[in-house]
């Protein structure tokens, strides 16, 4: 029998250290729904999502009750709408966005991702239709998330798309100005986007995926932080070892829930995503893991090294615990969704430049960062280009989810509520980059992309 100590250990992690499953995300292929009539494609999309995901929330709740482990989010990702909506054009894409929103609400999930275009090499008709309608789609819907992939290590960086996305982010923020520009919080610009990411706002169900799949995102920054409290003052060897052991346990729970959800829904298991995802709740912060390692605050010297160790040890511990690891699998450092990051940003010790450096060694990138509402579109584009360059050169995923908070300046606060949290508006460099962005074209793929 399991020992008393082991039971208490697990219960402590759940009750006091915020161990949970962050999300069960069902990926659904929508290619069957393609039709040139906007209303018809929207109707098909709605019906298909409801048919596939109708039991998702209920099954999630059952697993939660039986195993006693909280499953915070149940979500849906779909085939990029640039593919599904191409035949019906921009009007069709918007109709699909509305259908996705309605379906998500009716099946009870809290986000649906996939209002997506993949334009790393070029912008096709369907991509154009999605990108043009992102500001309106994110304004008129509540649960729909959008993403655009502008670069890959194989193709390089599509600077036309980068330039366009700066303007799209700004327009989205403007359209949702009355709600702290929340539209921009649901829009991610990627380099090297992955097809099986279960986390929002960047989840979509890639073209290489099965008809339907269950992907699970684990969590547990609080558990890692508490485990590290026991090795205070000890060497980094002990720190890495402790994180690995903890990540293994966390991931095993993810694997268990993924398998159980897959069996009960009769949908193939896709992947477990090993990301350490924080929430604004106390005791659920990635930044606090770094301070536990000995930093006075996240953002100070040493932050990048600490994050690199954390990110690597989480993978090493987690990879053996799951049969299929995928998604983004790394530590997240969203500013507005992490109590320690919020405090550091408010105190001015965490800057955009330091965050950029940190994104070179962890998953994703500049995430949930509020900047002044008057930040020029070219500056947003140049920030995207910098992140894309880090992703492309290092062969990793990077992303930008930046919110030019309309009517707000440095030091003001934005508040999105719930998991999206709140954040201080951060300073952005005023050095001009308009001529750089207006060049357009593509930044070629790096030499090391030629691996054949």
């Amino acid at each position, binding site marked *: *029998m*399991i*020992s*008393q100590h*082991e*039971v*208490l*250990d*697990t*219960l402590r992690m759940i009750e006091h250290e915020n161990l949970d499953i962050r999300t069960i995300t069902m990926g659904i292929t929508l290619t069957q729904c393609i039709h040139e009539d906007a209303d018809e494609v929207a109707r098909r999309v709605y019906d298909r999502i409801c048919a596939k995901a109708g039991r998702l929330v209920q099954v999630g709740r059952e697993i939660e*009750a*039986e*195993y*006693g*482990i909280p499953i915070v989010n149940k979500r849906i990702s779909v085939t990029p709408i640039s593919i599904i909506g191409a035949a019906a054009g921009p009007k069709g894409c918007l109709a699909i966005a509305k259908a996705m929103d309605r379906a998500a609400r009716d099946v009870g999930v809290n986000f649906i991702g996939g209002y997506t275009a993949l334009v790393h090499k070029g912008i096709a008709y369907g991509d154009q239709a999605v990108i043009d309608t992102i500001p309106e789609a994110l304004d008129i819907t509540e649960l729909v998330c959008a993403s655009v992939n502008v670069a890959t290590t194989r193709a390089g960086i599509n600077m036309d798309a980068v330039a366009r996305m700066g303007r799209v982010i700004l327009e989205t923020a403007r359209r949702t100005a009355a709600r702290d520009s929340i539209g921009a919080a649901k829009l991610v610009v990627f380099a090297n986007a992955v097809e099986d990411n279960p986390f929002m706002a960047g989840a979509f169900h890639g073209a290489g995926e099965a008809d339907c799949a269950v992907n699970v995102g684990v969590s547990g920054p609080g558990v890692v932080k508490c485990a590290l409290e026991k090795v205070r003052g000890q060497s980094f060897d002990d720190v890495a070892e402790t994180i690995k052991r903890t990540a293994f*346990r966390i991931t*095993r*729970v993810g*694997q*268990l829930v993924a398998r*159980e959800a897959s069996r009960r829904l009769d949908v193939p298991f896709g992947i477990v995503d090993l990301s350490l995802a924080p929430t604004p709740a106390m005791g659920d912060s990635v930044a606090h893991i770094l301070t536990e390692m000995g930093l006075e605050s996240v953002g100070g010297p040493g932050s990048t090294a600490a994050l690199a160790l954390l990110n690597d040890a989480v993978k090493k511990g987690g990879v053996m615990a799951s049969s299929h690891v995928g998604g983004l699998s790394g530590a997240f450092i969203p500013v507005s969704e992490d109590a320690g990051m919020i405090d550091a940003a408010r105190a001015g010790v965490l800057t955009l430049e330091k965050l950029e450096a940190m994104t070179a060694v962890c998953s994703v990138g500049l995430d949930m960062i509020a900047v002044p509402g008057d930040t020029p579109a070219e500056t947003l584009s140049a920030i995207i280009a910098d992140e894309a360059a880090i992703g492309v050169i290092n062969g990793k995923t990077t992303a930008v989810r930046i919110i030019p908070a309309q009517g707000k300046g440095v030091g003001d606060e934005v508040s999105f509520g719930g998991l999206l949290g709140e954040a201080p508006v951060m300073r952005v460099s005023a050095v001009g980059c308009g001529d750089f962005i207006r060049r357009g074209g593509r930044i070629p793929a790096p030499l090391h992309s030629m691996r054949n």
Partner: protein
Amino acid sequence: MKNAIVSVVGQDKVGIIAAVSALLARHQVNILDIRQTVMQDYFTMMMQVDLSAISCSLQDLKDVLSRLGGEMGLVIGVYDEGLFNAMHRI
């Protein structure tokens, strides 16, 4: 057979094991193993139970147990054994 772990934690007093086992028996839950200790007046008990013949829903069992826990000043939880196996066994 579906096994679960019933955890009972709280201030020690007379009759905890009696009350919890009586309630489990009433709902046809078979007790396979019990581990129990008292540390500084703090009572902790783990029961491995078999739910295959349970006469109510799992949720009902959880509800009556947590009501009993409330009356006796205890925290009582029911968890599928698979959770602990996953975390602590390779």
